[in-house]
């Protein structure tokens, strides 16, 4: 077994697998950087991802066009996250409760709609998922080719969005407004920044990314929709953002860490490791806890994190 662990083939499939499985968490975490930076903790991401996964699947199934699926997933994510925006910004509700409500609602609604649309079938309906797209020249490199340059287009998109997120956050006035709103909403307000608007936008951006993350599961990774397919990735994405201290590059690293744990667990199972497979399955969740423990004490949250803003209150 040890020799098998060390073969190049194993390492390639492990690393390529790590990249693939990190993508849904990465998408969701990138969007959540905006949301958290604006001072909002959205625990509804799990529910939003599920709705996105369903939206992407339904859109693709009925139009036979993967991009329509992606678009519908993003739209679903944005619309669904509006509930969170309304509750956290307008209602000024407790964000943990609002997020939990959204997750329960998303879990129920996606399962309900799926059953209503497709009924009870012996074989689950399937679509043709995004195919792998080998990048010319780079894809032919030994070792690095199959690891990095032989994925479907959404994987590349995720990596591009890491850079885009960084640029928007650090180099644009919008990014500056977002950070101002998260750190000191009153000061932002006095400079003419529309605090509620920025927060609504940031929650919606988070929703769009989470919808995309969900769609990656249904139409980029598998080719069907399952009720439990998100399996805590929405919550893990929140932890990833805290771990990454709101930096997209570090979020990429953290997402890869989770992807790696997941890919390793799958491959160790396949190799018949003498460890109960349940322990391996629990690995990503244990890792999330350990990661949180290691950073939480030092983490400097945006000053207005989870605190609603109201003009007339002091």
């Amino acid at each position, binding site marked *: 077994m040890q020799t098998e662990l060390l073969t190049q083939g194993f390492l390639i499939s492990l690393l390529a697998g790590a990249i693939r499985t990190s993508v849904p968490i990465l998408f969701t975490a990138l969007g959540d950087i905006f949301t958290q930076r604006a001072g909002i903790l959205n625990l509804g991401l799990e529910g939003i991802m599920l709705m996105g996964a369903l939206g992407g699947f339904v859109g693709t199934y009925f139009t036979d066009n993967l991009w329509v699926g992606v678009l519908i997933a993003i739209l679903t994510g944005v619309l669904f996250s509006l509930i969170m925006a309304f509750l956290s910004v307008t209602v000024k509700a407790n964000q943990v409760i609002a997020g939990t*409500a959204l997750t329960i609602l998303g879990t129920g609604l996606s399962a*309900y709609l799926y059953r209503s649309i497709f009924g009870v079938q012996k074989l689950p309906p399937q679509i043709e998922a995004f195919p792998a797209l080998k990048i010319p020249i780079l894809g032919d490199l030994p070792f690095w080719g199959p690891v990095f340059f032989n994925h479907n287009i959404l994987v590349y998109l995720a990596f591009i969005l890491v850079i885009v997120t960084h640029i928007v956050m650090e180099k644009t006035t919008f990014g500056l407004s977002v950070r101002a709103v998260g750190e000191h909403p009153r000061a932002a307000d006095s400079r003419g920044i529309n605090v509620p608007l920025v927060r609504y936008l940031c929650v919606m951006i988070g929703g769009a990314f989470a919808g995309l993350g969900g769609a990656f599961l249904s139409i980029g990774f598998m080719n069907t929709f399952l009720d439990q397919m998100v399996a805590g990735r929405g919550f893990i994405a929140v932890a990833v953002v805290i771990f990454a201290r709101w930096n997209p590059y570090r979020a990429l690293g953290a997402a890869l860490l989770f992807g790696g744990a997941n890919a390793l667990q799958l491959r160790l199972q396949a190799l018949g490791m003498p460890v109960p497979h349940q322990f391996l*399955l*629990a690995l990503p969740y244990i890792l999330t806890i350990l990661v949180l423990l290691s950073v939480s004490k030092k983490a400097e949250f945006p000053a207005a994190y989870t605190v609603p803003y*109201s003009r007339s209150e002091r």
Partner: protein
Amino acid sequence: MLNRKTSLKNIMVSIAPPVISIGLAMLVGALLLLFTGQDPLEAFKTLFWGAFGSTNRIAETLVKATPLMIMALGTSIAFKSQLWNIGGDGQFTLGTVFAMLVALNFSALPAPILLPLSFLAAFLGGALWGGLAGVFRAKFNANEVITTLMLNYVAVYLLGWLVRGPMIDPNGHGFPQTPLIQESLKLPILLSGTRLHFGIIIAVFIIFAGYVFWRSTIGFRIKLMGEGHHVARYSGIKISKTIVLIMFISSGLAGVAGWTEVFGIHYRLLDDINSGYGMLAIVVALLGNLNPLGIGISSFFFAALIVGGSTMQRMVGVPFSLVSVIEGLVIIFVISRVVYTQWRDRHANRTFNPGFSHQSTGGGH
């Protein structure tokens, strides 16, 4: 006379908001049913009949209300102190595991000793699992929402391993389940021909104990924590110790809820022994406004919803997930109530009402 009138008004004022929230959630549910081509009237009729249509069905509703009441009371203790324990599912699971370990390993002891012992073990199992998250919060400032949630997933896999490995029933033909507990440990059935067991009495007792708890010194300290850590600190309360204590009590009750399920219903551990009561307990606690009586009533309502919901799925083919949709909507309407109140106050006084802060989740203190 006047007194009676005002107290009646008080009751109306406290009952109206949850009733309105439920009504609105059901209304949206009805629209959803219409949208997917179902007859809402027929569906809700089946739901109601499924929950209350016969003695057996009412008994079944009470059976489901039992763990909900206990667990939601536990949830309310954490929530009231602004600690967001949403790991009820995992704590419930560990409660069942600990109780079962005691029941199987000390089976030589007489039932009157073994039963309370397993009860304590269940409390301890849940309490340690949640207490862990409490320690993580107190010592490392790790967000308890995420740690308790992650511990839920870990508990699922732990149970999955136990019922397939070390605790598997040797005579079970390889089914993922433990052996049955001995006959003398099974909780007595209150109504023959139904599954209504002694657990409901324990649940009601715990609800009443909730009132005593909030009047105790610990209860008072916990309430102070809910007012904000500064307030608590100035009152000389050791914050981190209290956080661990709250998580310990709150999740111990989730473990006890697991105990009632094992000793009252299943008599063994199964892979899916926890049927998502944890998430539901959050809804129940919030709808019940975090107070014991409210929790008692709202757990009965949600128990009816799940019992009726499964009848609805069987009889008229409405997916059971509609129940989760209604659960989610109920919380959303419960917390959105504030907007309406603000709007009303603003129009009444022409001034903005600053009395509401993000910390209150629906009054209660």
